[in-house]
């Protein structure tokens, strides 16, 4: 008999105070409590984390990589959004 599927979860870990949670991988668990415990065992065996989030993978909406050109185009052409676009005379010093 084929083994029935167990839901997939994405795991996010905050490594130190002040840093954001970062995606570290995924795991299978039947519910959120077990997902948290499994995340601790699989992803924090060497003190990698102070906080864990688990999110059902099915709850994530992702952008389509095939459309990344169109998706991110608005940011490509706006160099005036970067500080180096503006000229400040050297005499003014660091700004």
């Amino acid at each position, binding site marked *: 008999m*084929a083994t*029935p599927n167990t839901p997939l979860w994405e795991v996010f870990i905050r490594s130190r105070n002040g840093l954001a949670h970062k995606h570290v991988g995924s795991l*299978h668990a039947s519910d959120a409590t077990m997902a948290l415990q499994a995340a601790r065992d*699989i992803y924090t*065996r060497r003190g990698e984390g102070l906080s864990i989030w688990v999110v059902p993978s099915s709850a994530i909406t992702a952008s389509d990589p*095939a459309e990344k050109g169109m998706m991110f185009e608005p940011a490509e052409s706006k160099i005036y959004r970067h500080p180096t676009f503006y000229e400040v005379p050297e005499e003014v010093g660091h700004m």
Partner: protein
Amino acid sequence: MYTQALNTAEADDRGLEDAARAAQFQVRIDAEERIEPNDWMPAAYRKTLTRQISQHAHSEIVGMLPEGNWITRAPTLRRKAALLAKVQDECGHGLYLYAAAETLGSSREELVDAMLAGKAKYSSIFNYPTLTWADIGTIGWLVDGAAIMNQIPLCRCSYGPYARAMIRVCKEESFHQRQGYEIMLTLCRGSDEQKATAQDALNRWWWPVLMMFGPPDATSQHSDTSTRWKIKRFSNDELRQKFVDATVPQAQYLGLTIPDPGMTQDADGHWRYSEIDWTEFKQVLAGNGPCNRDRMAARRKAHAEGAWVREAAAAYAAKRAQRQTAQAAE
């Protein structure tokens, strides 16, 4: 290495793909871009990686068996704690790898079932027995040493999820090799009897470890495609040579003899080993190694005996979900 069965030839279905997309894909590979799960990829790339990553995962899981065998018999509490942690790491590595394989579209359950049905392979090395405590030292030193040699280039593999899993694995693997070498060092500095067990373990493991790198380049037909796709960065023979060159001085430091009387050092400093018995390798891959049947039986037993846990967890989750829905409706 963990995917030796891949070295058999497989039909290259490049012709069936949209040629333009395949060309574009190769441009991305050549530019060292990472391929991510939702990106377009040739069907053969997906198939090769699914097989490679799942076989690697199965190897980590089956690899727990030879060492798990010694957890209750470790000579000290320190060794026992270290071995337990190492075996737990192997389990974690298996899980990272299953997760990476799943991103290609097969579920972990399907992959595990394929292994239990004997349809998927795992590394030949785990079909050898661990007869003495020195075998545990040798596995850490040589088997994990060979694995590191193979896995470091995989951290730059073209498939993003596999490369990322390998980075985590490599970080943890170094402890495995060092604890193994420390066991060997302790045995070699101990009584004559203890040193003899270290030599005996090296004698038994040396050749199977060299076989881990897979068939010689001349006969490995799969490598071309894997190299073109930057899944593979070095050939079997290149990695094997690197491993031998790194290991010979370590054996000398221990005062152990590599069981290869024909081994010589050439002018460039490389250690040249004798011909490997590939008949043995083929036999082990075909299921006729010393422990193949034991390993499969142990995995099937563990899977069957864990069925009630999976069922109970699923039933509990379903009950909780139902209760929450009922409460929300009130």
